[in-house]
């Protein structure tokens, strides 16, 4: 990458992951037992990261339990972002991937697109203790969310929905199975008209909304 040296100064570009495809993370993340910033997820992205595409990725033997959520790094790293490493400004595509013991937060800003399709999320005992798998997959933000053909197994909370209905451009065949709570419509503005399909969750749905429509539950103890 020549050309970044000029007048005796090295100019280093912002980091970029041009693709993660059909690869596997093992034993990634660190220091789950410490508070941030000492605890780090496997991926520490920049707020300004334009795109991230993950296809066919596998993450097992996690040490943190979060995929990319992290907290502000105030100092100590030359060149590190001074802002929260949010993914809300990043166009994210996660497709055909498998995450074990790892939660993921999707919260696109207005104009930002997130596509989550054909993925499996496993909770349960895969992570070391204190891993935050209590809320496996969270959808928030005001951008464009496409969520199709995903399954969440065995987490404390399966799908956590904070985003309003206008955010969901597509929602189809998303199944929560074997979780303590299949779907958690956590805030009053959470979209309550998504088709929620749950199997053998302890509680199919918990909601803080006025109305919940289109649910389908099987062997869940309560809705």
């Amino acid at each position, binding site marked *: *990458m*020549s050309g*970044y*040296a000029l*007048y*005796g*100064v*090295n100019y*280093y*570009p*912002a*980091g*970029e*992951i*041009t*693709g993660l*495809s*059909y*690869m*596997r*993370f*093992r*034993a*990634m*993340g*660190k*220091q789950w037992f*410490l508070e941030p910033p*000492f605890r*780090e*997820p*496997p*991926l*520490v*992205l*920049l707020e300004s990261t334009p795109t991230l595409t993950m296809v*066919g990725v*596998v993450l*097992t033997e996690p040490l*943190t339990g979060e995929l990319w959520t992290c907290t502000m790094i105030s100092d*100590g790293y030359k*060149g*590190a*972002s001074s802002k929260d490493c949010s993914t809300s400004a990043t166009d994210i595509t996660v497709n*055909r991937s*498998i995450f*074990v013991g790892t939660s993921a937060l999707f919260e696109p800003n207005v104009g930002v697109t997130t596509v989550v399709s*054909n993925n*499996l999320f*496993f909770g*349960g005992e895969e992570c070391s203790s204190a891993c935050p798998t209590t809320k496996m997959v969270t959808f928030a933000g005001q951008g464009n969310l496409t969520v199709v053909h995903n*399954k969440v*197994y*065995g987490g404390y909370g399966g799908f956590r929905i904070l985003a309003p209905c206008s955010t969901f451009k597509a929602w189809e065949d998303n199944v929560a199975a*074997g979780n303590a709570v299949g779907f958690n419509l956590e805030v009053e503005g959470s979209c309550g008209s998504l088709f929620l399909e749950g199997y*053998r969750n*302890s509680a199919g749905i918990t909601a803080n909304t006025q109305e919940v429509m289109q649910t*389908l539950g*099987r*062997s869940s103890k309560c809705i």
Partner: protein
Amino acid sequence: MNDLSLFLSLSLIFLITLLTYSTFHVSQQLALNSSVPCNHEPLDMNSGRMCSAELPCGDNGCADVIIWDGWTVHIMLRRINEKMAEFEAVHFVSLFLTGLLYPNIFYFDVVWLEQVTLDVTTPFMNSLTIRGTLIVQYDAVEELALHANLINIKGGRLIIGNATHPFIGPQFQLFLHGDMYFHGKECTVPVNEFITEFGCWKQIVVNGELSVYGKPIEAVTRTLIRDAAAGDSVLYLDGDLTGWNIGDEVIVSSTESGGQPEYFIVGGILNGSILQLGSSSTSRTGLGVLATPKIGTTVEVEDQASNLDRTVLDGRATVSLLSRNVEIRGGYDSTYDYISGVGPDLSNYGGTIRLWDAWQEDKDGWCVLFHVFISDVWLRRLRVAFFCPTLLLLLFSTYLCHVSSVDIGMTQ
């Protein structure tokens, strides 16, 4: 004319001095590294076993001499070029240069290292700095691995396959090991002034490009089409298992409330879509049989009273392939690292890929003469290459000679 000759002579002397210093600088770093004794029990790089007088490790013993920050790709290349005798006892990479040599060590602002192809397994390095492009040979015929504590993509690129040429070799593994004396300790300080700017954290730092593309897999997840009972070792799936091989690892989801997934090794594939389970890492017995029953059938429901149209309830178990031919590991495995000697219960086990914002730093060997305005950049420092003291001495000497010459002329 005399002034010009003198100037050129001094410049020549200066360049010779510079090159001598640079070479010494490199040699000094190498010497430092080579003289570092084994400060913990040496381990065999391949097997992980302890070395001893009875069972020496031969060439692979004492691999921890490479745990120093000076070990960068620059040094590696330098070593290959000069065939340094002191490192002949260590197995090393056969990096192929397809570009020019690195410039940084000579402090010239010339072409950066263009491209290196990694086609063998590296020894254990403390840091690997990538200023140019390091490409893992995408069609390697043997298993490859890269072992390091820190990988610093510093303006360069690390390409482990890309969209057009994914890595299709049998296996590439990138290990972030850690050193038992630094990374195995309690590490609550990101920056440790006694070690490096990265402290005792092991990570992949990206100020450039990271591309990781493994071999595409046609079917990542399949679904059961028959119920399976506990104790079964054969699963009937809803499609062919192209790309799944005997020995691969799969995960089978639970269909019970609060159930745990089960892991198996593929024992065989029959008729393209029937999976024979091999050994299991989650089974108490280790045998390739299901611990709990799995649902493999669907149910259709319809309820006009609640306006529920005919709907398929599909709570079937899934089987997913976990094996990939490219892996990034935060340690040797999830329980133990044979280099650092620690496991996840100690601090700083694991690894992180951290993207950094754009930043800049002064180049070694350059000095600021003065500041100047440039139209497209509001302020840019005008710099000159080489060592400042030498340069200033050169300029001062030239000035003195010029003055002396003038004085002599006046006297005459």
